[in-house]
C-alpha cells in the first residue's frame, strides 16, 4: 500500500485521465433536468472538465444502486407470436468495463463490504464489485446525524475503497488500497507523502476511531436471547408511530431485500430483480394469503432486529454503517440510535 501527496490540480488531471477510459460518476446534488439518467439514481456521469462538488457528510444517495441496481434485468424473453425467439429466455450481455465512483464516503465504502456478506454467492452483485472502483474522501466534518464511530467505523477509515483521499491543508493524501486502485494511478507521476503528512493521517485515525460502545453493544445484543428483544415493550410505541413507508430501507446503504418479477410490455418481456422493503405488507405475504408480519409493529420490529440482531448473529457485524440517512429522512423521526440504546438497555434490565 502506497500513499502519495496530490494537489487539487493534479487530482483534476487524474480524473480527466480516468474519463478517457472509464465512466466516472459523482454525487448528483440537484434534480436532473429530465428523467433520463444513464446511471444509479442520485449519481451522475461527468465528462472531462465538468465541474462537480462533494457535499458535506454522506452523499445524498448511497452507492448501493451501483451494485444492486433498481431494477436489475436478469433475463429477457419474447412472447410475440411470430418471433423467432419466442419463449426463449436470454441473459443480458454483461459489461466488464471498469466504472469509477468518485466522492464515496467511508460509511458507504463500509456498506459495500457488509453487503458482500449476504451476496457473496450472487454472481451479479459480485461482478459489479469487480468492475466498480470506489474513490473515496475521508470526512473532516461530522454531521449531527453521523454515527459511524458507534457502528465500528470512522470518518477516516478507508476499508472498502480502492483509492482514498484525505484532505490536508494543501492537497490530498492519496492512498492506493487495491489492485483496481493501482490501475487507476498507473503511469502517473506522483509525489510520495512526507513523514509529517503521514503522521497527520495516523493522528486523525488514532483520535477518531470506533468507539468502545460498538463492540460491547454488539456483544451484548448477540448474547441476548432473541425472545427478550422480540418482546420488548418499545416496539409498541415505535410500531404505532411508524407509517411503514419504505424511505428508510431504500435510502439505507445496507438494506438489500429484493423481489423478482416478469414484466411484459407488448410481447416483450424481462425478468427483473427490484428493491423490496420489509416495511411493505406484501413483502412477507404468503401465497395462501396469510401474512406472518401482517401488523405494522411486526414489520417495524423486523427491520431493526434484522439490522441489530439477525444479521450480526449470522454474519458478525451490525448491518448498519452509521451514515444517518434514515434518521434524517424518516417522516416520523424514528432514530436507529435510540432503538439500539433501548435494546441494549433492555438486555441490562434483568
Amino acid at each position, binding site marked *: 500500500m502506497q500513499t502519495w501527496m496530490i494537489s487539487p490540480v493534479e487530482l483534476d488531471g487524474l480524473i480527466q485521465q480516468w474519463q478517457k477510459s472509464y465512466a466516472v460518476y459523482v454525487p448528483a446534488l440537484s*434534480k*436532473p*433536468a*429530465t*428523467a433520463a*439518467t444513464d446511471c444509479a*439514481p*442520485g449519481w451522475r456521469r461527468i465528462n472531462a472538465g465538468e465541474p462537480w462538488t462533494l*457535499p*458535506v*457528510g454522506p452523499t445524498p444517495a448511497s452507492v448501493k444502486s451501483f451494485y444492486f441496481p*433498481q*431494477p436489475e434485468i436478469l433475463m429477457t424473453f419474447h412472447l410475440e407470436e411470430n418471433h423467432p425467439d419466442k419463449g426463449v429466455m436470454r441473459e443480458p450481455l454483461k459489461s466488464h468495463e471498469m466504472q469509477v465512483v468518485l466522492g464515496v464516503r467511508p460509511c458507504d465504502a463500509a456498506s459495500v463490504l457488509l453487503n458482500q456478506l449476504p451476496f457473496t454467492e450472487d454472481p451479479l452483485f459480485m461482478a459489479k464489485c469487480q468492475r466498480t472502483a470506489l474513490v473515496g474522501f475521508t470526512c473532516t*466534518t461530522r*454531521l*449531527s*446525524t453521523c454515527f459511524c464511530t458507534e457502528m465500528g467505523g470512522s470518518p477516516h477509515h478507508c476499508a472498502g475503497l480502492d483509492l482514498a483521499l484525505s484532505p490536508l491543508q494543501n492537497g490530498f493524501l492519496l492512498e492506493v488500497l487495491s489492485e483496481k486502485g493501482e490501475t487507476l494511478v498507473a503511469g502517473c507521476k506522483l509525489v510520495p507523502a512526507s513523514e509529517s503528512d503521514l503522521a497527520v493521517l495516523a493522528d486523525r485515525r488514532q483520535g477518531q476511531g470506533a468507539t468502545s460502545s460498538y463492540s460491547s453493544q454488539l456483544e451484548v445484543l448477540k448474547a441476548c436471547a432473541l425472545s427478550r428483544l422480540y418482546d420488548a415493550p418499545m416496539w409498541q*410505541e415505535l410500531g*404505532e*408511530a411508524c*407509517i*411503514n*413507508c*419504505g*424511505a428508510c*430501507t*431504500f*435510502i439505507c446503504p445496507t438494506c438489500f431485500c429484493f*423481489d423478482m*418479477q416478469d*414484466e411484459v410490455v407488448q410481447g416483450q418481456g424481462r425478468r*427483473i430483480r*427490484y*428493491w423490496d*422493503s420489509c416495511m*411493505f*405488507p*406484501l413483502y412477507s405475504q404468503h401465497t395462501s394469503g396469510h401474512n406472518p408480519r401482517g401488523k*405494522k409493529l411486526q414489520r417495524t420490529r423486523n427491520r431493526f432486529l434484522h439490522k441489530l440482531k439477525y444479521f450480526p448473529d449470522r454474519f458478525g457485524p451490525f448491518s448498519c454503517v452509521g451514515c444517518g440517512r434514515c*434518521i*434524517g*429522512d424518516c*417522516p*416520523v*423521526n*424514528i*432514530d436507529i*440510535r*435510540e432503538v439500539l440504546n433501548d435494546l441494549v438497555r433492555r438486555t441490562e434490565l434483568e
Partner: protein
Amino acid sequence: MNMATINDQITDEIRKEARRLLKTGEVAALIGYAAGSLPMTVKPLVVRCLEDCERLVWNTFCVLNLATYLPEVLSSVETPYDPRDPRPEEPQAKVAILATGCWSRNIVIQIQEKRVDRERVVVIGVGSRGMVSRAKVKALFPEKDILTVDEGDHELVVHGADFTETINRWAVVRDNCQTCAHPDPVLVDIRIGEPVSERKNPHPFQQVELLEQRSSEERWAWFTAEFSTCIRCYACRNVCPLCYCPTCFVDDARPQWLGKSLDAVDTGLFHVLRAFHCAGRCTDCGACESVCPMGINMRMLTKKLNKDVRDLYGIEAGMEPEAPLPLTTFPLASVEFIVADLAPLPAAARIVQPSSEGDESCKHG
C-alpha cells in the same frame, strides 16, 4: 427566548388537558406529538398513561397529519372480539386527537366515509399558525449542519456549530400553510389556545395557475423532471389520511396495473393515480410533500384537483360532517347541469347544492 411563546403555552395546556382526559377516563388514548431527536422534527405519540402526558409537545414543526393514526388507535382501544362475532354493542372507549384546520377536515372526511365514529372522537382543536418546512430552513443553510432551532412567535433562531442566525418564521412556513384559508379547526370539542381567524387568500391556487398557463410540452417537462427522483418509498401514500385501501393499486397483482421498479412511466402513473384518488377529499394538509425524502412537489397534482373540484362542483373537502362527499353522493337533480357538455359551465351552474332529501341522493363506492 425567555418569555413563554404561544406554542409553549399551548404545550402546557395540551398536557393539562391530556392529564384530565386520561385521569377521568373520558378517553383511553390521546394522539399528539413528542419531541424529536433532531432539530425541527417531532414524533407522533399515542399517550395511554398519565406519565406520558409530560412528553407531549406542540411546536411549529408538527407537519404530519395526526388523523392518519386515528382509525388504528380507535380500533386498538376497542374491547377485543372475535371477528366472526358481531361487534360488541356496549359504548366503546374514546380517543382524543389534536387537530388543526386541515387535520380536523380530514377527521370530518373520516366521519363522512364512516371510518370513524364521531361519538368516539374527542377533537382537541388548535388553531394553526402555519407549520414550518424543514426543507425550506435547511435550504437557507446549504452545506451547514443545523444543531438546534429555537422557536419564537415570529422568528426562528437557527444554531450550528459555527453560526447563529435569526430568520423570519413566516418565510419558511410550508407553501400549503401559506395559502391555507382555514387554519382553525372546523370540528372542535375542546379548544386549546386562541382561535385563528379565517385567512382571505385571493390566489390560493397561484402555483397551479402558473403551471396551467405554460404550454403542454412545458408542463410535461415539469412533470417528468419533478417525479424523476421518486424512489417509490410510498411515504406520501402512507402518511396520507385518505389512503387506507387494504391493498393499494400499486400492490395489485391480478391485474398488475403498474410495474414495480423505477420506470419513469410507472412512477408517473403512480403519482397521477395517487393524486386522483384524493380528488374531492384532499384538504391540502401538505403531509405528503413534507415527508418526501426526495423533496418532490407532488402537492401540485392534488392542488390542481382541489382547484377543479372547487371550480366544477363548488366543494371544499371536509368542511361539514353532514355534507355528502362530492364525488360519491350527489342529488340526481344536479345531473342535467353537468351532462350537457364537458366544457366548463358558467360558474353559477356549476355549484351543485346538496339535496336534503335522502331518497333523491345516490351513494356509491
